[in-house]
């Protein structure tokens, strides 16, 4: 059984991949290009609002690079987590970019669009059947919370990618997907061990993060054979060492050697990492414990209100000495005047405990200059804005004890002073559902096939 060679252009398509490394990767003789383009890492805003996470211009650049590389070398190109959050609106955003690239470059190919957005009926039924459990730290899911969500997606495994390849797709654009499955799909279809292929996918999904020096903005290549895989970085300035790959296995995960996938749990406890050359590493010994019933992770974003904020700087040492009283006083006066219920006011004081809040051990050592962010969450943008405007007006002239100045307490960097950021979302659904049937692994992700570019 020969090697299956998979290239990842980076940790997130649309961040700007390294075109020189891509060219060097192609020279290795590839079988498939996989590209992860999203996550939940940037918060629920993108799933909730329907906005794309990446810049359109950079996404078009990166997609152009990998589509040209794939089509001119007859390699399938598999893109997952389209648009960042992977709902239908994100998939449509990414599809429009692909069609534009094809038009401008005279490309023609069969494109599979794999949807991951879910109507809430299936998950509602699973909740009622008691087949849904929260991810650690997440509250139990109720039907009310589910119904309050703006959009719900499920994270597909490799199965829909394989289905699309079986149907002759040259390019697959998929919604929300397990990162590992994007890269594992082709090797699994070629008969490689699913656990090994998924383990490989877990490494490729971060680009060259497992190399030395590490970065998510560069390419990584895997060669998968029957019982092991080799990881190498096409960029000659990076090495993949046994230590760098091993340390990467724990990145962004709670458990160092047990990691859940739709059809089972990956077990890295017996994995061996060995130098395959002076610049590459061979990985073997991955185990995969198959679930009794397959599962899928569902994600849903619920709107919690609208935000407005005021940002200012304070240099006055007498005010810095009174900052807690000042903040409490500004808040109280604002609440007294606005008479608004259901408004949440939150202050972040940079230069004291802005990053860590109550976890900050050195809170008593305030800097000589503070950045003060006052943010308001309101039921409408107008209410949030009005309350933030009241805070701004209080901040500028609030009388504090020991003042040696008369007014204008805050250096505001912006006009407008009050800035509206739109709706705020939270992941109310971040839950694992046990599926009714194994066929749901593909049934919940309908595929549409389209011919992109000129016919023939």
């Amino acid at each position: 059984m020969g090697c299956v060679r998979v290239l990842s252009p980076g940790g997130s398509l649309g961040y700007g991949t390294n075109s020189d490394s891509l060219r060097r990767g192609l020279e290795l003789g590839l079988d498939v290009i996989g590209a992860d383009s999203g996550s939940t890492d940037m918060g629920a805003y993108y799933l909730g609002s329907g906005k794309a996470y990446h810049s359109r211009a950079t996404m078009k650049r990166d997609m152009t690079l990998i589509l040209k590389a794939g089509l001119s070398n007859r390699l399938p190109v598999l893109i997952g987590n389209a648009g960042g959050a992977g709902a239908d609106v994100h998939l449509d955003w990414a599809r429009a970019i692909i069609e534009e690239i094809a038009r401008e470059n005279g490309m023609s190919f069969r494109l599979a669009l794999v949807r991951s957005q879910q109507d809430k009926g299936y998950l509602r039924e699973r909740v009622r059947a008691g087949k849904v459990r929260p991810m650690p730290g997440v509250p139990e899911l109720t039907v009310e919370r589910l119904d309050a969500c703006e959009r719900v997606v499920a994270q597909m495994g490799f199965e829909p990618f394989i289905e699309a390849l079986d149907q002759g797709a040259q390019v697959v654009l998929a919604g929300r997907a397990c990162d590992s499955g994007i890269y594992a799909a082709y090797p699994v279809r070629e008969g490689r061990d699913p656990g090994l292929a998924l383990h490989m996918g877990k490494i490729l999904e971060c680009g060259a993060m497992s190399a030395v020096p590490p970065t998510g903005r560069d390419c990584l290549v895997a060669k998968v054979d029957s019982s092991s895989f080799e990881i190498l970085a096409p960029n000659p300035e990076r090495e993949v060492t046994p230590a760098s790959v091993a340390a990467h296995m724990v990145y962004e995960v709670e458990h160092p050697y047990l990691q859940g996938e739709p059809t089972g749990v990956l077990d890295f406890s017996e994995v061996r990492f060995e130098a395959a050359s002076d610049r590459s590493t061979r990985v073997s010994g991955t185990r995969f414990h198959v679930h009794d019933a397959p599962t899928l992770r569902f994600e849903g974003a619920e709107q919690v209100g609208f935000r407005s904020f005021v940002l200012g700087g304070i240099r006055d040492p007498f005010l810095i000495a009174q900052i807690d009283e000042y903040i409490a006083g500004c808040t109280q006066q604002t609440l007294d005047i606005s008479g608004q219920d259901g408004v949440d006011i939150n202050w972040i004081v940079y230069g004291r405990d802005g990053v860590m809040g109550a976890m900050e051990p050195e809170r008593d050592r305030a800097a000589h200059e503070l950045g003060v962010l006052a943010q308001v969450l309101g039921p409408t943008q107008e209410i949030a804005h009005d309350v933030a405007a009241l805070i701004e007006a209080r901040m500028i002239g609030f009388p504090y004890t020991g003042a040696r100045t008369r007014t204008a307490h805050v250096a505001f960097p912006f006009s407008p002073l009050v800035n509206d950021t739109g709706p705020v979302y939270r992941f109310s659904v971040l839950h694992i559902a046990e599926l009714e049937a194994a066929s749901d692994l593909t049934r919940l992700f309908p595929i549409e096939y389209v011919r992109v570019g000129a016919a023939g």
Partner: protein
Amino acid sequence: MSTKLIDLVQFLFSKNAGPYLVTFDAVFDKEDSYRRVCDSGVFTKERMAALFKVPVERILSVHRYDAGRVIKFTMIREISSGDFGDRSVFGSQWWPPLIALEIE
């Protein structure tokens, strides 16, 4: 003689492990340093809860991974990533209290 954790590690960092968890990693390039910190027993739920001034129930787990020479612990966030009041969408920049952790 005790020393500070920063003098024994290659990297320290914090990062989301999903939107509701943040995971803290201490990565070692020297086997003897890794063993010394493991043997010191400082990475416990109780010690990490005290260091970060959070209830011990919010420390979900502490793990070591010998193959990667990594010690890690995972905290349940007070506010999930990007929700109103969150201070670090990626869970980044929360590790510096580990710098001065005394290791026997």
